[in-house]
């Protein structure tokens, strides 16, 4: 049942988001966006031997922002750090069967969130 301006995939991930939550003592945390702009995404990663073994998020934002976050966590779990870093907003949007033009920035936010979290991980594990 696709209602609203979104694809059924978006609606599914919006209504039943996967991996909502926090990871205590996460290996990497990324935060992008700003509630004043309407969206904010916080991504927690658990990384083990170069693999994303767990991902959780908390997002404040529109349907596309929540769905992008949910889809992103699904996509990166089980991927290597390098594979995760290679994920683009287009991959996220495609996996959601597309986003309305004005909502593309939500998938961009997802891409930035994973990069930000991986940067945080790299920084923490730089030593």
């Amino acid at each position, binding site marked *: 049942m696709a*209602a*609203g*301006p979104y694809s059924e995939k978006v*609606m599914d991930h*919006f*209504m039943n*988001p996967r991996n*909502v939550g*926090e990871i205590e003592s996460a290996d990497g945390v990324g*935060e992008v966006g*700003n*509630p*004043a*702009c*309407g*969206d*904010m*995404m*916080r991504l927690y990663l658990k990384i083990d031997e170069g693999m994303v073994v767990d991902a959780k998020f*908390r*997002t*404040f*934002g*529109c*349907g596309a*922002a*929540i769905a992008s976050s949910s889809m992103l966590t699904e996509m990166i779990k089980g991927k290597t750090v390098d594979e995760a870093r290679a994920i683009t907003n287009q991959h996220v949007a495609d996996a959601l069967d597309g986003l*309305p*033009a*004005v*909502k593309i*920035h939500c998938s961009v936010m997802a891409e930035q969130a994973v990069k930000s979290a991986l940067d945080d991980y790299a920084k923490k594990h730089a030593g």
Partner: protein
Amino acid sequence: MTKAFFDHISTTPLDPRVFEAMRPYFFDRYGNPSSHIHDQGQAAVRAVDQARAEVAALIGAKAGEIVFTSGATESNNLAVLGAAEGAGAGKRRVVVSDVEHFSVMNALIPLRNAGYEVTVLPVDRNGVVDPDAVRKALRADTALLSVMHANSEIGTIEPVGQIGQIAKEAGVTFHVDATASAGHIPVDVREIPADLVTLSAHNFYGPKGAGALYLREGTKVAPRTFGGFQEMGYRAGTENVPAVVGMGAAAILAGREMGAWAEHLSRLGKTLWDGLAAIPMLHYTGHPSERLPGHVSFWVEHVEGESLLLFLNMKGVMAASGSACSSNLRGHDEEDLVASPVLRAIGVPSDICTGSITFSLGKGNTADEVRLALDALPGIVDRLRAMSPTYLDYQKRQVKGG
């Protein structure tokens, strides 16, 4: 599933009686009023003339003061741009309130480009324009003052009677966008000294495709549509006869029944308003009493507006975020990404305000429908907050503070 439509500010369902009035003009009486030489054309002429008188009667005007348009946007454009041009050389200033609809605000773009000076009047936190600020803003070279009657997003009713008196004394043409108010609360040009008033049929149970601009006798407005000589020269193009007839029929109904509608809406609106108080950190917007009947608007801390509305829709509850036009997903990015200009105007801090929610009730709504909304809302708010990083931070701050 029960469905409850609470977005009457964006459009209203057609009253079946209005539809019956329109129907013959789709079939037996399909003439073009400009072809008045024959019976079909004459029937159309009579229909448009009658509708003109009916719409005029709704606002206490004369029939000859009503110009039919395709809708409120066209009426607002004609009022703002036409009056600016019609005011003549030397009058190069326009004054508007900070909460006007896009069809007034964006009509200022070509005026600014043409060198007009635009003064935007601030509103208070209830969204009310201060008549004293109007008095100070009007000058001899002011071509036009435009202040809406009721705001669609926050429901506030502006003191247009008082403001119009000030404009009249200053000799400034006064435009009132009554799109959200006409047909719902009294709009009478014998009491509101407006020179131009915008009306929209689909906002009071009439059809889409018909609007009107009231032009007080003697008001100078340059036309913006060029072609045949319809609508006394103010608006070229074949009249949308069925829609115009529908606007007339809707005007009659509204004139007769708006009191009863308002009573029903106010009662339901109060139930909704009171019920919402159970949701923590919910903030009502607009004036608490000087507001459209059945209009309930608010924002919720840590809850983004679109998400809330999508979940509501899934529960069969249709509400909107402020003005329909400001939420055009298919529009330019910017409009979508910034907080509502009206919320900004009433001083809601943009870092915690994340979406304006408007419930606009209609005469067909029931107490059960309101109950449906009230039952759905707390769970949705909780669910979205549970997902929100800002709410998490807020809770942690509370715990620390406590």
